[in-house]
């Protein structure tokens, strides 16, 4: 006890959060309240944030346990659109599986899957306009796929090969695709958040019609950037959708270390006077409906929306970690909100738009599509081919628009040194 402590008072204690389940523990989600599908009301798109406080604590769900779409948030999508979404989710999973394996085979240095979270990017991308600007984190590869971006182009980035438009500079999965409305990904967490707000403010100031959307993990909400973004978004009523993908884990740290023991992430909106929605992230229809709602709200100049998508990171954080070291292996299996692909599949079967046979054929087709793309991408090289991929001089390009003397000198120096060394 420190000196000078008043001895007649109880000692203070420091609370350090602890997740419910650790490796080896049996998992029991009995006290997790999903709420009933269809139970949460759908406010008008221009509703004042203070009449929708409850929406930050409940869970918007559309698909019930029988795969039926129920309640006011049912987006009533055409069956073809639902199947297209399902296909893109399956494609995302096949893409991830393939490239994860490629990393294990030593073809590239690193990979990150979004397994279990596919709905949060695919359904969101479907609900946005193609020209809305996305500021993703590293787990939204689904947006590019949903926007029809070339698999080969994405893979070339992962392989840092000759076909990589980013000239082999970025770590795998840190895509950039301006044409697809996909902002360059940073390895520094949450930096994209204020940037998305800035884009939205600019669009508004110019009288444009495009909106912006940002994604970050629940762990990243602790960063100052997140809070600066919320302040700007709220103050200027920026036409932006701020998505928090609460997949329960930030590497080995459970969501409690970002504040989840005390409130929801959607409730962050309340303090900033923003609309906040908490949504079942494994329910593609709920994701679609919430994004569509927030997009309409932004387009109507009714302000920003912060959406927490409640989901689960079914795989490791990246190829560099082993999740069995910090969480129960049962969590994934027992996750009470199921698997987003399985749930959407059940729904399209229930409405008679789909069947097991077509699903099996589709699974095979997306795997083939990924495999074909992989062959094409690998024909342009893999990272393991080492220094052969990009001309050395490209290293000095794009540091500045015009190369200053010192970089010209260094580029020449490198050339001379290599020549002299005979390499």
């Amino acid at each position, binding site marked *: 006890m*420190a000196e000078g402590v008043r001895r007649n008072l109880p000692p203070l204690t*420091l609370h*350090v959060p*602890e997740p419910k389940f*650790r490796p080896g523990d049996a998992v029991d989600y009995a006290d997790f309240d999903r709420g009933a599908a269809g139970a949460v009301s759908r406010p008008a798109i221009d509703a004042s944030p203070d009449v929708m406080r409850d929406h930050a604590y409940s869970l918007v769900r559309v698909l019930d346990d029988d795969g039926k779409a129920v309640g006011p948030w049912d987006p009533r999508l055409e069956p073809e659109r639902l199947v297209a979404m399902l296909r893109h989710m399956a494609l995302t999973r096949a893409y991830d599986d393939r490239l994860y394996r490629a990393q294990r085979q030593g073809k590239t*240095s*690193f990979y990150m899957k979004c397994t279990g979270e596919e709905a949060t990017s695919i359904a969101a991308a479907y609900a946005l306009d193609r020209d809305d600007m996305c500021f993703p984190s590293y787990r939204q590869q689904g947006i590019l796929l949903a926007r029809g971006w070339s698999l080969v182009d994405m893979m070339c980035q992962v392989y*840092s*090969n000759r076909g*990589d438009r980013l*000239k*082999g*500079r*970025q*770590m*795998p999965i*840190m895509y950039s695709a301006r044409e697809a409305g996909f902002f360059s990904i*940073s*390895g*520094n*967490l*949450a930096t994209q958040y204020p940037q998305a707000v800035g884009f939205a403010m600019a669009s508004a100031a110019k009288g444009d019609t495009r909106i912006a959307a940002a994604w970050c993990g629940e*762990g*990243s909400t*602790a*960063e*100052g*950037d997140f809070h600066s973004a919320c302040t700007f978004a709220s103050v200027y009523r920026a036409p932006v959708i701020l998505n928090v993908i609460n997949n329960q884990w*930030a*590497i*080995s*740290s459970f969501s409690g*270390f*970002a*504040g989840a023991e005390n409130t929801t992430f959607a409730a962050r909106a309340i303090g900033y006077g923003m609309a906040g929605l908490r949504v079942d992230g494994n329910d593609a229809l709920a994701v679609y409906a919430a994004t569509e709602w927030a997009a309409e709200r932004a387009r109507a100049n009714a302000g920003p929306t912060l959406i927490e998508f409640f989901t689960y990171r079914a795989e490791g954080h990246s190829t*560099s*970690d082993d999740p069995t*070291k*910090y969480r129960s292996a049962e969590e994934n299996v027992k996750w009470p909100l199921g698997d987003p692909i399985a749930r959407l599949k059940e729904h399209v079967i229930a409405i008679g738009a789909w069947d097991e046979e077509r699903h099996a054929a589709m699974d095979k087709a997306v795997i083939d599509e990924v495999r074909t793309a992989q062959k094409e991408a690998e024909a342009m090289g893999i*990272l393991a081919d*080492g*220094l052969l*991929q*990009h001309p*050395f001089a*490209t*290293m*000095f390009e794009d*540091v500045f628009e015009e190369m200053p003397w*010192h*970089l010209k000198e*260094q580029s020449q120096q*490198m050339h001379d*040194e*290599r020549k*002299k*060394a005979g*390499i």
Partner: protein
Amino acid sequence: MNMIQAINSALDVMMARDPDIVVMGEDVGFFGGVFKATEHLQARYGKTRVFDTPITELGIIGVSVGMCAYGLRPVPEIQFADYIYPALDQLVSEAARLRYRSAGEFTAPMTIRSPFGGGIFGGQTHSQSPEAMFTHVAGLKTVIPSNPYDAKGLLIAAIEDNDPVVFFEPKRIYNGPFDGHYDRPVTPWAKHPAAVVPEDYYRIPLGKAAVVREGEAVTILCYGTMVHVAVGVVAEMGVDAEIIDLRTLVPLDIAAIEASVRKTGRVVVVHEATKTSGFGAELAALIQERCFYTLEAPIERVTGWDTPYPHSLEWAYFPGPVRLTQALEKILEA
């Protein structure tokens, strides 16, 4: 011990000795850190002394300042040095100046550990060497070990130091010394004399460089991973170079540098960070201020290029043996 084990051991020894030491950072608790440097510490010292933090580097350093105000000695970890930038304000404007602005009423005896440097295909956000920025800040000390033995002794000294210390760990050499030949197998630390690390307390004072190899022909100033590149190149070339491992950049062992330069008259500075305003510039300026008339050749700098670290071309970025060899040839001919 390898370097991770040595760092872990330093933390362990110090936590056992001093109940005011706390370790915190992203994933450092139950998981023991993404590089495993804090493994077992939470089990040993409890959750209030070793704990995970929210992902806010600014918060981690700001909270550490407050803990110092209470009387603790925090050892926060920033998961990668590239992520120290969000914490800059608390580090630069607060921790570094606390002693000065309060005339010693408050101090910030914290040690910020952070893995830094490239060579692990980390691209431009997992590879940088930002040490020069911290040497530019009055009130911060900057320490960079190059082997397990030093890592433990220096970390202990840093933790005992009553000023804020930025302790950069060259992650490329966590598991073994690396001579820059990326296409050759890496030997583990076990084969290296510096892997013999005492289990218990010892310290290596901050501000003392190590003469890794004595020589007459040229002085090579280096730290971290580059020490091993220098050792490898000097052995391959068979030149009689003196290799000085600076170990701490602030405070700098200027006496060791001066003595060596006066002896050899030639200097090559090697670091992985970009060249412009890198620490090599400071070294070159100091040497010309203090021993210009003993120099027999212009000082050479072998550094990373003035570009971000490129993922696929990282070996062309890394100032490896080819470049150091040519610099040595050039300076010895001059």
